[in-house]
């Protein structure tokens, strides 16, 4: 079933502030085979905050997305500054584009990630591909 066509252009409320702790950064660095000993967080760490916003989109029952049918098509980050420990980050997601190709929904999202003062930190653009239901159940 295709997702709700009125999704295009919709902006979701900002996510609850996410406090960047040293433990979370260490855990993320370790999970990507690296280590953390202070300074800027790993380059792709902001996906944790953006993913919070994407999860809210994907779990919204009115939108009609099944998580297990979603694959990540494309990702782009633009950074105003690196993320550091102590940041309180929030992501506001907008659905920029929505297209259907071969029964799949191609959902272009933009998450503006800001700090506690509302200043921009990073923009995460994610294209989500919601694959067609082929009749199988997971």
């Amino acid at each position, binding site marked *: 079933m295709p997702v709700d066509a009125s999704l295009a252009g919709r902006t979701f409320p900002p996510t609850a502030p996410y406090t960047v702790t040293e433990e*979370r950064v260490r*855990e*993320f660095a*370790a*999970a*990507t*085979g*690296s280590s953390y000993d202070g*300074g*800027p967080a*790993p*380059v*792709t760490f902001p*996906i*944790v905050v953006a*993913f*919070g916003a994407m*999860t809210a989109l994907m779990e919204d029952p009115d939108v009609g997305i099944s*998580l*297990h*049918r*979603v*694959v*990540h*098509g*494309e*990702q*782009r*980050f*633009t*950074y105003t500054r*690196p993320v550091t420990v102590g940041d309180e980050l929030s992501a506001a997601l907008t659905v920029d584009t929505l297209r259907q190709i071969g029964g799949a929904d191609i959902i272009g999202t933009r998450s503006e990630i800001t700090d506690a003062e509302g200043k921009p930190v990073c923009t995460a*653009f994610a294209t989500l591909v919601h*694959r067609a239901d*082929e009749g*199988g*159940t*997971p």
Partner: protein
Amino acid sequence: MQTGDTLPEQTFTVTRADLVRYAGASGDRNPIHWSERVATSVGLPGVIAHGMFIMALAARSLDTWAGAPGKVRELSCKFTKPVVGPDDDRWVAVRVAGTVTQVTDDAVHISLEVTCGDEKVLGAPKAVLLG
């Protein structure tokens, strides 16, 4: 870095355990990254690595080439070919290579090539570093 420079290739290994760990650390608990049953039910070849996990490996390479973290101003790619995470004691190798495409007063543009076996797994991966 100068335009045309080839950056030293880096190799990373990916195991099923890495994917479970990444799911926990990133908050992406989509079952296609840990359940064979769910992954194959939606037409995937098996449990696939998070695209963002592979992108994180590319990002680590950028930090290494830059000589310090915190230099990346832009990073983008398409997830064109899934990396299948084997469910045994084996691993797959992901290789990251890079070429400097442009150097300006304040930026270094890098084109990446990220491969698994003989196949490119990311489409048009590229980055801009603070010069």
